């Protein structure tokens, strides 16, 4: 199933990059999936084999128009609908993000800090992370006061933990092992 999702994502990335609207497709695909997640009825309608395909197409067309989705995404959604792969959309989205990031040379970073970072601090951190990865870094920021101070950065499966909480935890482990 993962390979199939990869193939759909690969095709969407190809079209989005060739039409130079990859960022827009990413955002709109995310919005559409958010809509699906929020509406179980819509999900049921799209997944149900009892609903005729023209009705499904009409619903998706209507939603895409209301969302202001571009032609690339509309066509893609119709293809997915026609092939009865709407249940795979979350996997396709994940694969699309990964492949698009890889093609654009982007690394995604999750940054959790104890306090809200200023723009200067964000830029400083992004610069350091780009230095580490050798790629452009696209970061998402979160705040967790439990960290006390410092920040935790996760890029893929790598975690850089510079929080005071982590230092205290290391200290605790050291004391306990003595």
């Amino acid at each position: 199933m993962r390979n199939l999702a990869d193939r759909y994502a690969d095709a969407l990335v190809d079209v989005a990059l060739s039409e130079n609207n990859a960022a827009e497709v990413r955002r709109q695909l995310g919005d559409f999936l958010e809509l699906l997640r929020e509406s179980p009825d819509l999900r049921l309608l799209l997944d149900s084999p009892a609903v005729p395909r023209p009705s499904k197409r009409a619903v998706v067309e209507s939603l895409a128009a209301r969302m202001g989705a571009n032609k690339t995404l509309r066509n893609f959604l119709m293809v997915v609908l026609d092939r009865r792969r709407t249940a795979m959309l979350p996997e396709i989205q994940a694969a699309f993000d990964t492949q698009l990031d890889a093609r654009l040379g982007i690394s995604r970073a999750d940054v959790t800090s104890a306090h809200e970072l200023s723009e200067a601090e964000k830029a400083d951190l992004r610069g350091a992370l780009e230095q580490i990865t050798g790629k452009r870094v696209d970061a998402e920021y979160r705040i967790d006061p439990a960290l006390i101070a410092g920040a935790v950065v996760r890029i893929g499966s790598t975690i850089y933990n510079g929080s005071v909480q982590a230092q205290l935890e290391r200290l605790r482990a050291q004391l306990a092992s003595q």
Partner: protein
Amino acid sequence: MKRMPRIRAAWLFVSSCLVALFCAAMPLVAAEEAAPNPADTSTGLFFRWLNFAIVFGAIFWVVRKFGVAYFREHARSISTAIQQASEARMVAERELKDATQRLAALDLEIQDLRRAAVRESAAEAERIRERARLEAEKVMQAAKSEIEAAERAGRQELRAMAARLATERAAAMVRAQMTGETQATLFRSFVVELRRSAS
């Protein structure tokens, strides 16, 4: 050598018969001497002796014809029986000797068995004592190990608790003294550390 005793026995038998006949005839002879009898004449005496000789001859012939073989056979069977008895006696004596020897040996054997039983019982007792000692040592060792493990676990738990309390206290103190400036400084030092790890 075997023949001689048999012949002698036959002759002895015949002689005994003659003596018996003579003794039986003595009263008759004495009675006839009392009254004169024609038989007492010399002719009568002759015929009497002739009669005696014929009877004696017949008896002698019968005895010689059948008695010798009979007595010889009898003597042979007696001799065989004596020989067998002798052999049986020898065998019995040998068996008796063996039995006596075995009996004497039996005493020794019983004594050996008794000594062996005593030795075995002592060895078994020693083995049981040794096994009990080993079991007791094992139990002691297991108990000791268990106590040590419990002690280690207790110490570990105590250390962990002390470490947790210390770090919780430290966290509370750090939080209380944390300012925006300190946070910014710590964040900067983290970024510097990241840059250092990149190069």
